[in-house]
């Protein structure tokens, strides 16, 4: 058997539950059958990748419990095996997978929780950049300020959900298990994830501030972003919002475009 055919067959056998033709064709048996020997590798693949997904999605693991998580991880792994040789980049499609995973339809917020955890993972590993301080605004003339463009840190991710995933996030970050079942009020969530220094920050925003950042991130000017926020809330306080975000170290650079 050519090496290429062997690896193609082995891969197919590893990602299936019970495709054992390959084992009987290629693997020497003996006192322990070829299928049982192949099963060692099948287990390795599913167990180690499940551990990797648990490390990236601890809140999902906590919300659904170990047994359910392992079942959905195995299904995900077989349908979306890693495409790169580092697990840092593995599991980005977990949210989209949960959207269509029938057994998870009872928990419609799971997919957005997964997107939030993936944003956290991306922020953790993203390129480093030093945040600018608010003092930088004094470099610009009052005429330039309305047309400034603000660049968010490379780690910044904006996540919104029509489920209260902010409350669920807080719940899953608590160290104690709750005594009783938790009632969570319905509601939407708007979340900013970024990493100003070593620690990833998860910030819950009001809708106007969220849309203000979405607009800045889409390369709108300060005026354009303000308009996006004021459309939702005419009372939107630009000055205090911008000042809070700058002191939180969210921006990598600001530039004036004439």
């Amino acid at each position, binding site marked *: 058997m050519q090496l290429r055919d062997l690896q*193609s067959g082995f891969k197919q056998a590893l990602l299936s539950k019970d495709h054992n033709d390959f084992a009987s064709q290629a693997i020497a048996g003996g006192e322990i059958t070829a299928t049982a020997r192949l099963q060692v590798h099948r287990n390795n693949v599913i167990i180690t990748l499940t551990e990797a997904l648990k490390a990236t999605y601890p809140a999902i693991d906590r919300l659904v419990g170990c047994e359910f998580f392992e079942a959905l991880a195995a299904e995900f792994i077989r349908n979306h095996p890693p495409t790169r*040789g580092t697990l840092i980049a593995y599991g980005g499609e977990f949210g989209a997978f949960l959207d269509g995973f029938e057994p998870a339809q009872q928990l419609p917020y799971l997919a957005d929780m997964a997107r939030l955890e993936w944003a956290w993972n991306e922020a953790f590993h*993203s390129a480093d950049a030093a945040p600018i301080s608010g003092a930088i605004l004094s470099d610009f003339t009052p005429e330039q300020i309305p047309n400034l463009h603000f660049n968010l840190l490379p780690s910044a991710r904006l996540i919104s959900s029509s489920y209260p995933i902010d409350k669920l996030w807080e719940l899953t970050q608590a160290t104690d298990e709750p005594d009783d079942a938790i009632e969570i009020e319905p509601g939407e969530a708007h979340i900013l994830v970024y*990493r100003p220094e070593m620690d990833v920050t998860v910030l819950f925003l009001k809708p106007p501030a969220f849309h203000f950042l979405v607009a800045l991130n889409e390369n709108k000017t300060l005026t354009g972003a303000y308009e996006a926020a004021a459309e939702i809330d005419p009372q939107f306080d630009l000055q205090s919002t911008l000042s809070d975000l700058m002191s939180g170290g969210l921006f990598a650079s600001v530039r004036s475009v004439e």
Partner: protein
Amino acid sequence: MASSLNTDGLTQRPIPVRAGVGLKAQHYGEILETSPDLGWFEVHTENYMGAGGPPHQYLETIAARYPLSFHGVGLSLGSADGLDPAHLKRKKELVDKYRPALVSEHLSWSSFGGNYLNDLLPLPYTQETLEVIADHLRQTQDTLGRQILIENPSTYLQYEDSVIPETDFLIMLAELSECGVLLDVNNIYVSAWNHRFDPRTYMNELKDAPVHEMHLAGHHFNTEIIQDFPQSRGLRIDDHGSPVMKDVWALYEEAIALFGPTPTLIEWDTNIPGLSVLMGEGQKAEAVMSKIGGKRHAAA
């Protein structure tokens, strides 16, 4: 703070002939606070393939204090359909930045057809495989501009098509590609048990191979397989999740007698204990090196 990959301040420190331990995120803080007396650290290169963040910030600080070895688990030298150029490029960036004294890979494959399977899968030892992996080793060494070591695997199966003994395969590979050998003593023990060969014979066959590093780790005995196949002697599974077994220590003494004192890594990747446990294992390895190594040199 690491703003980009650069070589500022990181000079290559040679690996001393001592024990090192695998660097784990759980131990970053303790290492920086206590600067433990350890010869060197080995990292899984793939854990540092992110663009930035805490992993790089810790590794930069540790690299300034200790010699480093980069051990790859994701390059997949044995893939019939070639190396992933993006993976190799990222590996080169990391090697250029951190200047590790040793760089190693496995005699195995893990990727095919655009998928990475996260397991060190066994290769059939044939002339075709030898050419594929020798080519990939040369490509990797040319890209990195340095020699790499290749590690003997733990295996649970053998292929019908395998025709070259593993030790011959390793020796030919080292000759063809001018790579070095990373001798994993635990892997020899595990494979010898699983395939009923004598681990001492295996080591003796490699006695002239360019062994520049050794690995020691724990493994476990698979209880399900022995239930399903009670007439067999079961399978030992390499999991790096427990102390080095007594029989493996005995084999390590023989390895040191045969190859001389060699930088030796304590690998522990699952159920990771406190750093002091890893250091204790490292001290045992150093005690073996001073006992056996001393005798060997005195006799020579």
